[in-house]
């Protein structure tokens, strides 16, 4: 098992290397690399100085190694817009995005999966059809639209919840989190709800589809023939069987949810990494864009590795040394 883990981690490292090369090529070789370091409206002199200093007249592969070295040291350049090291910028915004995403994803799964199982167990009941209808809405309607409606309803018309920005924070493990304060939750409510709806709909549909399929298998028939109660069948057989595709999607969609946070953060003025990248794109703050890409790539690779491992944990057929 340990060997399996190590193997996966090594593969991940390889993929990261490939990704870094891709990002490098995309930014340095295609665009004008100097634009990543110096703002385009600097004078010719400064540009020439910078080119010499940053070794941009060196051969490409040498530059790549410098790039890689910097990366590993955590040096991702300086933001044009904010003037501070990009790594610091990102780290300061990361907790906001993380707490939003985690809460959204957890809520979506913990509520969505049971609802989906019910809908799959009794596919023709009116409750189940309603659940499905709601899920179609959550799935089809673009996130930004839901955000708008949420703000319109809860903030403008009803005035219950604030329309944006993050609440007060408290420290845990050296990082500031807003879910630790009550006021913080009021601010978290709408954006988290917004972000979670898409995932929620997806989880419902996934659980429903999986349950419907499993209920028709011989495994369930045999369990019924043994006199096992329907509740137990759902709990012990069905849940375990559908958990595999659900976990896979959960892991992959976590990354996607982080991506969609971009939209939610923009609408709700949530000071996270998502808003950072939108601002960066709009103002052509290249170092931030590069750093964001690298960060996202790293995140995805990590998620893939974790999902692989959890997959093996859940499905004994995938564990190494499976055949007796």
């Amino acid at each position, binding site marked *: 098992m340990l060997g399996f883990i190590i193997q996966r981690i090594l593969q991940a490292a390889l993929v990261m290397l490939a990704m870094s090369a891709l990002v490098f090529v995309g930014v340095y070789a295609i665009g004008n690399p100097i634009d990543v370091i110096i703002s385009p409206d600097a004078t010719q002199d400064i540009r020439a100085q910078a080119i010499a200093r940053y070794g941009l007249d060196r051969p490409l592969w040498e530059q790549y190694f410098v790039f890689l070295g910097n990366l590993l040291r955590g040096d991702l350049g300086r933001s044009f817009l904010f003037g501070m090291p990009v790594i610091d910028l990102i780290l300061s915004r990361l907790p906001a995005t993380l707490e939003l995403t985690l809460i959204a994803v957890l809520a979506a799964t913990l509520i969505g999966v049971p609802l989906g199982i019910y809908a799959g167990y009794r596919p023709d009941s009116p409750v189940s059809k309603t659940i499905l209808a709601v899920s179609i809405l959550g799935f089809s309607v673009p996130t930004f639209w839901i955000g708008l409606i949420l703000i319109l309803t809860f903030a403008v018309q009803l005035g219950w919840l604030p329309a944006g920005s993050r609440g007060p924070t408290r420290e845990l493990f050296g990082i500031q989190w807003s879910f630790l304060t009550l006021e913080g939750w009021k601010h978290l409510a709408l954006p988290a709800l917004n972000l979670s709806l898409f995932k929620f709909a997806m989880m419902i549909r996934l659980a429903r589809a999986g349950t419907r399929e499993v209920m028709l298998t011989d495994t369930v028939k045999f369990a019924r023939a*043994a*006199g096992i109660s329907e509740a137990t069948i759902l709990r012990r057989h069905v849940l375990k069987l559908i958990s*595999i595709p659900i976990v896979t999607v959960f892991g992959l969609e976590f990354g996607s949810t982080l991506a969609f946070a971009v939209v939610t953060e923009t609408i709700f003025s949530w000071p996270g990494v998502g808003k950072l990248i939108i601002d960066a794109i709009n103002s052509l703050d290249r170092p931030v864009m590069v750093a964001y890409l690298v960060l996202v790539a790293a995140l995805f690779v990590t998620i893939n590795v974790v999902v692989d491992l959890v997959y093996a944990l859940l499905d004994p057929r995938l564990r190494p040394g*499976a055949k007796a």
Partner: protein
Amino acid sequence: MTQPAAPLLEVEDLATHFFTRAGVVKAVDGVSFALRRGEVLGLVGESGSGKSVTGYSILGLVDPPGRIVRGAIRFEGRDLTKLSPDQMKAIRGRRISMVFQDATATLNPVLTIGDQMLLAVQAHERLSGRAARALMIETLAKVGIPDPPSRVKAYPHQLSGGMRQRVAIAIALLHRPALIVADEPTTALDVSVQAQIIHEMRELVRRSDTAMIWITHDLATVSSLADHIMVMYAGKMVEAGPTRAILKNPRHPYTRGLLDSVPSRNPRGVDLPQIPGSTPSLLRLGAACAFAPRCAFATEACRTAPETVTDEAGALRCHNPAGLAA
């Protein structure tokens, strides 16, 4: 047939129909038979004959859009068709068990053998962990699985096909049922393993006085196992009787055809005789005898479906039994 002891199971005019979008499929249409303790009934027929659905009907496992539309299934003094779902659930696995064809599909691949057996144990009895485990190990040993304690921790894919089916049989035997319905349990296995399991089941059944319905398409397998045979075609019984009598002197042309196509009955080097044609669609059964289009002995009389005639040799539904053709 004389029945000295009261039958354990009495099926009377059972009909199970499926109400599909395309029409009504009369999967089982008027089947009757009786079974005593310790007896083995071989239910023989091609796919589509209704043999599996008969088995499901007895266990109350017919999925919608199917439904038992008429008939009675009397078991231990009760009519199973009239029981509530909870009452049926109490019987399933405890008094009547079922074994399916493919153990790879019936065993849950993500649960250990022990976990699955435990679920079956706890479905009917509240046993302590140790007592449950003891029961599981004892039953596994009974079906011929070597080293049960280590097998209990294994996953289904770690066992061979024959072992998996034995586990399924063990689960069926856990609560010492009075009746086991086995739906093609050896069809998916190697021939050698088949023979083993048939032999073991025969011993098991004799020792514990369990009644068994062995559903199969292969006459050869039931010949050594069954006390009685019932042949089904297109949802109806066509011939029934003691095994020896049927094998020695089959009266229905279909039974004849089945027997004649058994390889061991034919000399080498000669083409195997086949029954021409194929099974009719169960959607479009008319008033005629369903087998007539394929029957070598069909006559005008076969435009109307024959009635069942019961005599000392068994039951028969045919206008022109083989050997007595006009």
